């Protein structure tokens, strides 16, 4: 469970203050499917970075599974990211010199997991995502959709509780975009909390819970009632 209490984030550019998040209060329950929409510059990415512990609030509190993570030091926050959070980016962010399989293995290397277990888990995941025959390919030998699948495999290899995706379909054509989205939605069955930032209303509408942002504020937070 994730909770943001009165979170503000202000950037200082020169002698100007830019406020990206204003007094955000938000609670995400395990297994929720959330989409975040809003115009450019409304603070969606900043919010996602905040949720992923890549950024610290200027003021306010972040509670993760009941614990305050705002006060954790770099080492401890890194550990939380490693064990509980998965990221999927618009531009994939694969390491170009590593193969698809090695990219997927990377979080487990950082976590100090033994080689045999790493190999086994990579193999299972590559198979699940239909990447088995691409395992030894470098990112630049893969299509956009394949790259994003590798990135999703990497984001989930540590079995995180939260998956944060910032415009995961932004760099893909429509069909591939849908395939990738289906893949992400499939993770919900495993009880993962899925947060997707998107500009695409059609994609945003698929989530049970739809958050709209404007100028650093949450302006609407709708639950779909079935």
């Amino acid at each position, binding site marked *: 469970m994730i909770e943001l209490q009165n979170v503000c984030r202000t950037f200082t550019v020169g002698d100007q203050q830019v406020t990206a998040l204003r007094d955000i209060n938000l609670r995400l329950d395990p297994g929720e499917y959330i989409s975040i929409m809003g115009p450019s510059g409304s603070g969606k990415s900043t919010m996602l*970075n905040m949720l*992923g512990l*890549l*950024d610290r609030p200027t003021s306010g509190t972040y509670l993760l599974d009941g614990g305050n993570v705002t006060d954790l030091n*770099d*080492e401890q*926050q*890194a*550990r939380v*990211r*490693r*064990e509980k*959070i998965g*990221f999927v*980016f618009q531009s994939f*962010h694969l*390491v170009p*010199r*590593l193969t698809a399989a090695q990219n997927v293995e*990377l*979080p487990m*290397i*950082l*976590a*100090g997991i033994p080689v045999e277990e790493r190999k086994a888990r990579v193999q299972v995941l590559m198979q699940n995502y239909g990447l088995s025959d691409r395992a030894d390919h470098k990112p630049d030998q893969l299509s956009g959709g394949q790259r994003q699948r590798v990135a999703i495999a*990497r984001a989930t290899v*540590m079995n995180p509780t939260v998956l944060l995706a910032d415009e995961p379909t932004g760099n893909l054509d429509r069909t591939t975009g849908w395939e990738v989205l289906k893949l992400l939605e499939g993770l919900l069955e495993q009880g993962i909390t899925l947060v997707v930032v998107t500009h695409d209303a059609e994609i945003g509408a698929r989530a049970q819970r739809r958050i709209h942002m404007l100028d650093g504020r949450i302006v609407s937070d709708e639950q779909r009632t079935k």
Partner: protein
Amino acid sequence: MKLADTFQFAYGSLRGSPTRTLLMMLAMSIGVAAVVVLTALGEGARRYVVNQFSTLGTNLVIVLPGRTETAGIGPGLMSGQTPRDITLDDAQALLRSRAIKRIAPLTVGSATLSRGALNREVVVLGSTSDLLEVRHMSIGIGKFLPAGDINEGLSVCVLGNQMKQELFGNEQAVGQWVRLGDRRFRIIGVLASQGESMGMRTDELVIIPVASAHQLFNTSSLFRILVEARSRDYIEQAKHDAEEIMVQRHSGERDVTVITQDAVLATFDRILTTLTMAVGGIAAISLAVAGVLIMNVMLIAVAQRVKEIGLLKALGAPGTQIRMLFFAEAALLSTAGSVAGLVLGYAGSMIIGQIYPTLPVSPPWWAVLAACFTALGTGILFSVWPARRAAKLDPVAALAGR
């Protein structure tokens, strides 16, 4: 992250940009090779000098007439006297000391050596049978000067190898007679070829009994006395005794100089070791230059790999881990550079050894160790800044490539 994985990852990123890696390795290896080659040369020079001294004889103490005062004016000079000569009796008196094993008095002069119509100007050395042992000479054919009464001027001589060749060629020389000045000598031996030792070419010498030399040159004084101490531990004692005996015999006047070969050797040894270290130190500066290059290239690498660093952070790598990755890269680079440098340096030393076979070129172990540690040290030291910079990157900005 496990250490092995850290190094493997670092290795991967080094492999990922081979030109950059090779360049840095080259800089490192040139530095290490420079230290190895230059100290090898210095050490070679030192060993050369030490070897030269040991061919001169071991545990040697030398008694010279006259006194070189380093402070004040000696009593001899005050009274206007010239220093007293050293005589054969003086030399024999030295044997009274327990610390002295053997002595060889030396008289040196030049004379014309002739056999029939052939003649040649030669350096004549007057000495005794013990000279062979004291000076580490070896006899080729026949015998050396006979032992016996030191005052007896026998008409026998021993030729240096080259002298024999010039006068006799391949003929038998031992048993033949030659003329030295106005006197005839019978050849009883020929020295084995020895080459040069400390500027004295024994191959071109003629050696006769010291008493005969005194008669030949019409003198009774010695050029110097070579004294061999009983062992290394007795050198100082021998020196002291020699001085005391000479003072006694010269009615209380210190008018001889006694030097130990050890002291001279130690001085040379010290000078040359210092020189080797200095040269090695200068070469080590090139290692610092290599370090600066590594720092520069690593800073560029950090800038180039900003996104990757951001990603690693997003995937859960703390700053300390990022720093370790850069240190591991530096360590791998320095190690590889050192190994390459050692190979280069040893190869270079061997080539120099081939070109100057008389110089025993070989890099001293301390220099090799120092070079490797300096390489490793500078490599890691100069990566501290780039590594810190990478570790401090803000992950959001880094992922955005800012």
